[in-house]
């Protein structure tokens, strides 16, 4: 720290003085210069070194694996170029998995964000036992996903499930949760929502409490009702938070694994791949069929997909940010 201050002092000597008497730069001063230039990078380097080891290296290694025949135990086989990618892209299972992933993602994320904002708005009011309610919504998040999946897959059992019992009581034919595509997605999305709605609610709640109260006061004076001020003040003020939640749930949603895997006992996503997601397909190739080459190809395709969606998110974010700035 001491050297930094010294170097700063030296740095502030007028340039004209240097031009007058060019003198030899001492080692300690050089050290000081390095300190200023290099130290900040050193300070942040642990993250990047860790990222290099745990993030970047596996990424490129996966790319290396994906162009080889690769058995999980025997390891590297022949170089096959893009054969693995070609196989995966031509396989209907891959496209089915892609469809399922998006469908489950949409069925979970959209209602989740809407519900979370609504619940947060209610919790933001002056209600009794605030802390109790606020902690209450987080409770499902504490339950492990495995337990959630086990409970819900029983609730959603096709014949003996309680959900179908209830539907039957109000005169609706039993839904074939484990056989049909959309019902299975809805059931899985319910598990995801059960787990994540409370978490997002708390994030929204925190953001809502940061909204300046005088905006609401002004709105009340202007004669705005509760709903009007919710849509005209709360929601616009929450925009950055909404973007954050959407991005995190996108990344999580595209990698969804636990819930669909535990939706039935076999864990392969249904006999016809009704609810097999991308990560489950990857797992099936890599672990059930010992084919790491193909699994790595899927991993890379998934990575590219998330990248593309991330870029779209980024573009939208920028647009919203600039439009927010103009206001």
């Amino acid at each position, binding site marked *: 720290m001491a050297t930094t201050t010294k170097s700063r002092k030296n740095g502030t000597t007028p340039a004209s003085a240097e031009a007058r008497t060019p003198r030899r730069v001492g080692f300690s001063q050089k050290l000081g210069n390095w300190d200023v230039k290099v130290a900040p990078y050193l300070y942040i380097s642990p993250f990047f070194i860790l990222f290099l080891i745990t993030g970047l290296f596996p990424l490129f290694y996966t790319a290396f694996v994906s162009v080889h025949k690769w058995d999980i135990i025997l390891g590297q086989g022949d170089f096959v170029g893009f054969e693995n990618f070609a196989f995966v892209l031509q396989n209907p299972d891959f496209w089915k998995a892609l469809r399922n992933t998006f469908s489950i993602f949409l069925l979970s994320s959209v209602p989740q964000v809407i519900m979370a904002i609504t619940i947060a708005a209610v919790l933001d009011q002056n209600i009794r036992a605030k802390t109790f309610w606020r902690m209450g919504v987080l409770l499902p998040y504490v339950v492990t996903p495995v337990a959630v999946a086990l409970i819900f897959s029983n609730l959603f*059992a096709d*014949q003996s499930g309680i959900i179908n019992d209830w539907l039957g009581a109000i005169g609706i034919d039993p839904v*074939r949760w484990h056989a049909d595509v959309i019902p299975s997605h809805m059931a899985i999305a319910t598990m995801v929502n059960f787990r994540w709605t409370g978490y997002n609610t708390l994030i929204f709640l925190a953001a809502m409490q940061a909204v300046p109260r005088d905006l609401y006061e002004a709105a009340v004076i202007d004669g705005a009702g509760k709903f009007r001020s919710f849509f005209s003040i709360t929601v616009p003020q929450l925009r950055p938070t909404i973007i954050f939640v959407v991005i995190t749930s996108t990344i999580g949603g595209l990698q969804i694994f636990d819930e669909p895997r535990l939706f039935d006992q076999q864990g392969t996503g249904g*006999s*016809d791949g009704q609810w097999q997601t991308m990560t489950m397909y990857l797992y099936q190739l890599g*672990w059930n069929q010992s084919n790491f080459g193909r699994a790595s190809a899927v991993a890379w395709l998934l990575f590219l997909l998330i990248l593309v969606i991330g870029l779209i998110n980024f573009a939208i974010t920028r647009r919203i940010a600039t439009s927010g700035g103009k206001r």
Partner: protein
Amino acid sequence: MQSSTRRTRKGLMATAGIATLALTLAACGSSADGDASSTDGGDSGSSDEPVTLTISTFNEFGYDDGLLDEYMELNPNVTVEHTKADTSQAAGDALRNALGAGSGGSDVAAIEGDQFALFMQYADKFADLSDPELADRWLSWKTDQATTPDGKLIGYGTDIGPEGICFRSDLLEEAGLPSDREGVAEWMGDTWEDYFKAGEEYTEKTGKPFYDSAGAIRQGMINQMENAYEEDDGTIIATENPELKEMYDTLLEESDKGLSAGLSQWSQDWNEAFKTGGFATTLCPGWMLGIVEGNAPDVTTWDITNSFPGGGGNWGGSFLTVPAHGEHVEEAKALANWLTAPEQQIKAFESKGTFPSQVEALSDPAITDAVNPYFNDAPIGQILADRADAVTVSPFKGPNYQAINDFMADALGRVDVDKVDDAESSWTKFVNDVNGLG
């Protein structure tokens, strides 16, 4: 002044915190030491190094009822730690990861019979367990499954899954059909044709399904085929094997006639149906008995025949292996050897009903006289021993067996369980899936 006191206070707190942490850690450390030294103290006279062995199994092997404790008492220098996976697949995945990494995993790893072929191709990753003294311990077909072409034995057999047929006597009685053990066996006959014919009779009379699913019956039929999916050299023939296609067509025809309840095995609905009478019969390997009882503890009418269509059949049964990369291969071998000795497997049978694969155990009174009160006092030991004797075919299960078998389960499930496809198009998907294996 103000700020400096605050700093000291903070410093104090930090010191206190670190001290607490250090104390806790020290406590942990010392307690671990204490344990180790107490085990040291326990072995009087023996100068052997203390060894901690890990063993991984799945479902129920019957080792928890004191067997492992007994081993530790006999070998005071050995501590055995037991990890249980919930399914054989999970156990297999974990083992594969360990073998791939060349480290980690357990010293003794259990592998399920159907998965075993997959691991046979990595035989050099396992310790050679062959021992002339043990040559005749197991049924020969059990040992054959774990022996490589060059004579290396990589697994000690634990249990086998000889199959009888479990039936609900009250349901058959209501339909005016034979309902006692012998009568039912006779009525169901000795071939699959007879079994299906009996099923058609039951379904016609009652309008109710006869068995749980086409996929379940497939397990019985596949295990009677010498080469269902692969030739002995591993060439995949699943897509053009007429025997397999015939089985597929037959099963789905019978489903069409309403014999199958269309309940996917292990699903919640399947579990429930044992209670509610969703089907009248199901294939019952030894290890299934505990599952039937667990699913329908209050039903008193489940029973088991001493017969099986198409000759005997074996479904499942496991092995204990010793991965070669382990640190204590010799000690692990000794443990696997001891656990799979007839005496110990008999105790496992008494605990969880896993039927021993050891020749000597099969004639032991503890097995032959065993009676299962839940199954209407069935002489279960005798029945399963007879069923094991009836097994004549040792199906070839190559490295792709499990993957193809899963595809077959899906192919039948699409039509029989989910009803989202017809037989022909589902078969096409099966062919595509199999061709995709590479």
